[in-house]
């Protein structure tokens, strides 16, 4: 077929892609990680390596533990009283679950964007400044700059620069979600976790966020949970497929979608369940 002919240019691009992904260093490493909510064994013997400066997506059917996986990285599961863990999660060399870890510093290193846009009912400016103020990172002129920088990175500055004092709730859903991204970026994290960030958005807003994710990977390690297969295929470099608390398959997105190794993965991708 004509469409599948490989031109030399494309071949070069593929090689570059391969280098970019293979050459990336490990940023987040799960080692024999288990997590329980009470009696419920939610994450089972997870051992994966998430690379820096690429986009890794986690997909799987509802209830497979993909959100829990994401929250295990910044220990947001700690909020749930009955949560227990075993094993380790490393960010660079630091075990996130070590006794002496300061969770507040950890969560500053790891930004998080939620399924439903959740800006505070405060002004656009105050939303972005929130984390910066909490951590005492800047004030006055520096704070203004931090806010502008974050909004620019989130591709929102041009739309809100003249309405920084307005309530964030007057923004559209897609703008609110980009505001939440700006808010997360403002505390200068290294990793950005996104938990189905587009599931509440229309296709145009979704496209904007996907473009944004692509631009963010240069500075950040992006981990994206999605139930949308096309989205995982479109934006991510590596993909993990999870099923009932286990990582069934993890590899380059292209390989995983074109030649899944496991039958379960293939069944999921081809829509036999999910």
């Amino acid at each position: 077929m004509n469409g599948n002919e490989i031109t030399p240019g494309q071949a070069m691009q593929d090689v570059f892609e391969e280098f970019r992904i293979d050459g990336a260093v490990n940023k987040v490493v799960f080692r024999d990680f288990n997590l329980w909510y009470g009696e419920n064994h939610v994450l089972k013997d997870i051992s994966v390596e998430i690379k820096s400066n690429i986009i890794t997506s986690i997909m799987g059917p509802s209830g497979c533990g993909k959100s829990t996986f994401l929250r295990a990285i910044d220990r947001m599961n700690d909020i749930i009283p009955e949560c227990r863990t075993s094993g380790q999660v490393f960010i660079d060399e630091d075990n996130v679950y070590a006794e002496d870890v300061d969770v507040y510093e950890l969560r500053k290193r790891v930004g998080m964007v939620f399924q439903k846009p959740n800006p505070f009912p405060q002004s656009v400016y105050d939303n972005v400044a929130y984390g910066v103020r909490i951590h005492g990172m800047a004030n006055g002129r520096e704070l203004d700059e931090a806010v502008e920088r974050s909004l620019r990175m989130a591709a929102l500055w041009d739309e809100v620069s003249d309405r920084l004092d307005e309530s964030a709730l007057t923004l559209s859903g897609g703008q609110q979600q980009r505001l939440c991204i700006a808010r997360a970026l403002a505390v200068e994290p290294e990793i950005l976790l996104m938990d189905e960030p587009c599931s509440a958005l229309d296709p145009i807003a979704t496209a904007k966020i996907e473009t944004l994710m692509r631009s963010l990977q240069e500075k950040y390690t992006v981990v994206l949970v999605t139930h949308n297969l096309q989205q995982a295929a479109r934006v991510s470099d590596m993909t993990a497929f999870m099923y009932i608390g286990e990582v069934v398959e993890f590899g380059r997105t292209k390989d995983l979608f074109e030649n899944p190794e496991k039958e379960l993965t293939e069944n999921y991708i081809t829509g036999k369940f999910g």
Partner: protein
Amino acid sequence: MKRGDIASKILFLCASFSTLIVFLIIIFLLREGISALNWNFLMGMVWSPHKNLYGIFPTLLGTLVVVAGAIIIATAIGVPCAVFLAEFSPFWLRNMIKSTVEVLVGVPSVVIGFFGLIVIIPFIRNNLGGRGESILAGWIVLAIMSLPHIISLSEDAIRAVPTSYRQASLALGATKWQTVRRAVLPSASSGMRAAIVLGVGRAVGETMAVLMVVGNPETPWIPTGVLDRVRVLTSTIAIEFSYAEWGSPHQYALFAIGVVLFFIVVALNLVATFVIRRRNWNG
């Protein structure tokens, strides 16, 4: 006519009945009280039925002082209590405190007044001097009475703040306390203001308990200290109505006090509704 029509008509009658009652009360109050309601009445310094002088200014001021102090005390205790219950207390402790607080709502005001009479007044008399019957005693009693309303309404307002705000804040590396102070409380503030306004409404209208502890001097004066005795609007009606001659200016003046009270409470309710509306409008 279908059978369903009859049912809905009966329901409609019951619904109109309560509205009708409110209107009847308003009409009655205004008809009886409006003739005595004028500038001299509101701003007059002397209330002395024997001399046919009906100025409620000292009484009005006494009411405002007693209510304001009580609300400040109740807010200072009630809001932190609500924050603790909603955000920090373990489940069993919250249930325990909440059910105790709800019992306090059900205690008849005369019983609280009795408590004030037997415990608070002697305490003030023995430790701070004066007769014990005082503005301070009124503050304490009224604070006790509005406390449960402020606590439970504020707690509702705090718990109504979406979990997603808390999550957003924690995920940014905020501590629990920072999250409560900077994300939760600002979002709950309109609800908490409404709670306080409703508490004020309750305190303004309260009669029995206050009457028992504030002293009610026969000729009210402008209070000069917290140990002074005062008169409040409600207790004036309650005390004097029994001996006000039927159809006399004295009786009309008491009705006029009722009108003033009514308008204060309506105004407070309007403020509360406005505050609550604004919260909804903000999303």
